[in-house]
């Protein structure tokens, strides 16, 4: 297999070819991983929330409470303010889903689903929906539409400013999707490319391939730790940016 084909095979989504009779189910590697992540998240959420008297149960409860407190005081309140506490469940779900999706790629046979633009686009659309919903909930429909026009704008500039502000909002949603997608895809490609260096050099000379394995594996371990950091960082950045954008809409007047 060519190097480019190997990279494409590992990074791009592919159909698993599941058939029920004559009906083709469009189950792909990414949808399967997403389903796995959702099941794991559901189990984790149940474990963290069920009250019990055992030491383990109380420990899990404390971890869950600490996580929610971190989301409230570290992301939602600084970005939106006290009004944002109503949206706390969305942010708690968003952060954990992105984090688990990012980390899934580090497990063998699983895929980084956030390296698929459709997944990050879907998440960004959900955040875009929340931004619009928060704006309408706070200011009403007419107030939300009026909030697109900055204060002090002369009437003759309104036809120019209104579309500019609407496109700015669309760009923000696109940026949310592209940022997460690009970061996860690039990290995954670097990991794979470092491994492939060994085989490319090994094709020229087996001894050189063995020699290249040591620096390549060192870099691979370093990049894996960097990917762990990026997985947490990107989940944090996506949630924080969503909260900032919601805050901008909520406090637009």
């Amino acid at each position: 297999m060519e190097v480019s084909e190997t990279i494409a095979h590992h990074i791009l989504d592919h159909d698993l070819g599941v058939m029920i009779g004559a009906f083709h189910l469009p189950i792909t590697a990414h949808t399967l991983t997403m389903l796995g992540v959702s099941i794991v998240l559901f189990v984790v959420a149940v474990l963290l929330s069920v009250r019990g008297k055992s030491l383990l149960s109380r420990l899990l409860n404390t971890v869950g409470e600490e996580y929610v407190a971190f989301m409230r005081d570290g992301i939602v309140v600084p970005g939106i303010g006290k009004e944002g506490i109503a949206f706390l469940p969305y942010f708690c779900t968003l952060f954990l889903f992105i984090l688990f999706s990012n980390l899934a790629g580090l497990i063998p046979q699983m895929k980084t689903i956030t390296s698929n633009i459709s997944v990050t686009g879907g998440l960004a659309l959900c955040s875009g929906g929340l931004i619009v919903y928060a704006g309408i909930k706070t200011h009403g429909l007419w107030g939300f539409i009026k909030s697109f026009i900055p204060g002090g704008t002369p009437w003759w500039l309104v036809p120019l400013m209104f579309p500019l502000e609407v496109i700015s909002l669309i760009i923000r949603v696109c940026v949310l999707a592209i940022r997460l997608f690009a970061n996860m895809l690039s990290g995954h490609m670097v990991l794979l490319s470092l491994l492939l260096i060994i085989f490319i050099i090994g094709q020229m000379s087996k001894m050189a391939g063995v020699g290249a394995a040591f620096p390549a594996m060192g870099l691979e371990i370093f990049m894996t730790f960097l990917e762990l950091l990026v997985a947490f960082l990107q989940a944090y950045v996506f949630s924080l940016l969503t909260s900032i954008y919601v805050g901008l809409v909520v406090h637009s007047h």
Partner: protein
Amino acid sequence: MALGPFSAKDHVVITTLGLEFAVAVSMGVAVGFWLDKKYSTFPWAMIAGVMCGFALGLYIIVKESHRLSQTEKITEDKKKNGSI
């Protein structure tokens, strides 16, 4: 007036500005290219799209910089009044 010091929240916004500018220009190119294909006017709509995207990107950067400087001014005023 010099900007900063910034909070972690501001840093996230600042690092996103570059991408927002790039997306604005790319959207302009994409819309212009689509119009060119539809009305066979290549490359004029694309050039107009690039210019509009560039202007929009600059507008976003200027607006965010202004908002950040206002946030810093409010924080400085609060510090002077002793409310922080």
